[in-house]
């Protein structure tokens, strides 16, 4: 029983030594964390469902989402009196099948969310690294701009820009991609500063590590945790905002099935055919819920593990 397990004298900034023991223990550990947190598990499952729906929309959707069929227009959901099993969630005012449109709508939402976060995250990361690492005047100017942008009323400006640019998927992605950069800049810079302050960078430097090497070996791995967590929440927010823009008729063109567009249509018929608006909204809530629960779980998993300091 010569067990020499000493307490890890880690700086706390690198990953725990337990997790260093290879890939499989890591997977098992994450699995344990997942099972312990039922909400997180649920969230990931929900998110997965949406992704599957988006990717396999073609085989899953029973009808063509664009096909209009005025004969079956305004049919209520299948479980009601006047409903029919051909259209599970009913049809809209043009006779388009709601269920299929919702499935295809997930594509727009996920595309906007994913690429929006990709753009905002990568650009924000670069700017944040520059700002945090270089410091001084560059940092002041960048943070001044960031703080200014963050102080503005977001919705007003998003709506303004969308109105100017016109309706297209690319425009929407670009709008969210660029307006969300400040948040990622702030997070990245915060992390970089934290690491600089901990004296860690200085000591690595003093043993001869070049700036670039420090960057890749130490700073970036520590950024992954917070970035992924924030990315999840921002993605969820973008999906919401896209739906909002669609609701105002400022998102993708009306022919494209998006949850926001569907809500806009549904609003007109709210009092007589309420299902047209209800189901797209439920889809948004479902997706948002999945992403938020996943994000909460990710935050619990990634942050304390990667930054735990054993004293």
């Amino acid at each position, binding site marked *: 029983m010569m067990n020499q397990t000493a307490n890890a004298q880690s700086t706390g900034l690198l990953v725990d030594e337990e997790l260093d023991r290879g890939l499989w223990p890591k997977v098992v550990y994450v699995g344990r964390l997942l099972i312990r947190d039922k909400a997180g598990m649920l969230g990931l499952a929900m998110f997965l469902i949406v992704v599957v729906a988006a990717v396999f929309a073609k085989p899953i959707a029973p009808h063509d989402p664009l096909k209009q069929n005025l004969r079956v227009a305004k049919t209520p959901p299948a479980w009601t009196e006047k409903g029919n099993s051909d259209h599970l969630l009913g049809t809209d005012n043009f006779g388009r099948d709601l269920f299929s449109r919702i499935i295809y709508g997930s594509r727009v939402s996920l595309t906007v969310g994913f690429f929006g976060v990709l753009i905002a995250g990568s650009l924000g990361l670069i700017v944040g690294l520059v700002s945090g690492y270089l410091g001084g005047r560059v940092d002041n100017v960048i943070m*001044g*701009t960031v*703080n*200014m942008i963050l*102080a*503005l*009323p*977001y*919705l*007003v*400006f998003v*709506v*303004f*820009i969308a*109105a*100017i*640019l016109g309706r297209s998927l690319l425009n929407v992605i670009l709008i969210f991609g660029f307006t969300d950069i400040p948040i990622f800049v702030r997070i990245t810079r915060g992390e970089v500063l934290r690491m600089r302050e901990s004296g860690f960078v200085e000591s690595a430097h003093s043993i001869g590590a070049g700036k670039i090497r420090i960057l890749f070996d130490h700073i970036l791995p520590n950024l992954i945790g917070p970035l992924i967590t924030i990315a999840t929440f921002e993605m*969820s927010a973008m999906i*919401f905002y896209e*739906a*909002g823009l669609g*609701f*105002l008729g*400022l998102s993708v063109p009306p022919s494209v099935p998006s949850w926001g567009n569907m*809500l806009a249509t*549904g*609003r007109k018929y*709210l*009092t007589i055919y*309420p299902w047209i*608006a*209800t189901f797209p*909204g439920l889809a*948004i*809530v479902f997706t*948002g*819920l999945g992403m*938020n*629960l996943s994000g909460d779980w990710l935050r619990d998993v990634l942050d304390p593990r990667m930054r735990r300091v054993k004293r």
Partner: protein
Amino acid sequence: MQRYIMSRLIQSVMILMGVLLIVFFMLQLTGDPVSLMVSRNASPEQIEALREELGFNRPMIVQFVDFAAGALTGDFGMSLRHQQPALKLILGRLPATVELASSALFIAMLIGIPLGLLGGSNPRSIWDTLARGAGLIGQTIPNFWLALILIVVFAVNLGWFPSFGRETWSVFGLELPTRSVVLPAFALGVFTMGQLVRFTRSAVLEIKNEDFVRTAYSKGIADRRIYVKHILRNAAIPLISIIGVQFGYLLSGSIYIETIFSWPGLGNLLAEAIGNRDFALVQAIAFFTSLVVVALNLLTDIAYGLADPRIRYGD
């Protein structure tokens, strides 16, 4: 404290200058602002004439100085559609939005703060579950959809509240809110409610573990006193910031709710202006809203500085 206020004041002024630039250039960056404003089938001569009339053919610098000077003196441009000064229109709509935002904030605070407190002080209890659930609801339900559902359930089916329009109750020249504000305020306030629950709950959880709370226990102080004078008093200070920021968010983010409920406020005006491609008005609203939010943030920071003795009596 004075230095704190000064620095915040300067920051606010710089932000506003930045806003002026952004708002101005947003319009210019589209290439040709004038062609955005006219109907599709306007002739090139008509466009040119309008351009000259509106002064868009002057050099950029001149346009900007004109714009900025105007903003400083209260001239926010002219609404093309209404043929009235933008500021006048905006101020006319402002009371309705303030009523809506205040009501939403009130409801959010009424539900959110107590629930967060109960949840944070009783971990793993039913209150904690409710608090986390409320936080989740606030985060995941889009307010425009909630508005639609509320209308269907409460206005159409139950008939308890009107589904559109704003009614006020005139008392001594004051316009007081009536039940017409309830559904819109609920829908608008749900996100803020979620933020308040989450923040309050996590503040209580965090503060409970602070060293000074342990010191208070080590002195044998009664639980209730520790809770109120030590935990709550510390949680209340950052709460001021959150409330201020949320109020700004409510004032500026009401476009969906006002559109759905035909609420005659700023958000509605904005939606209208966009529909009419009245970009001068849109620009004015964007600047005005920013001004309000920045001023609100400044006031919030000052209140925070007064409340936190570390800033108020800081060295």
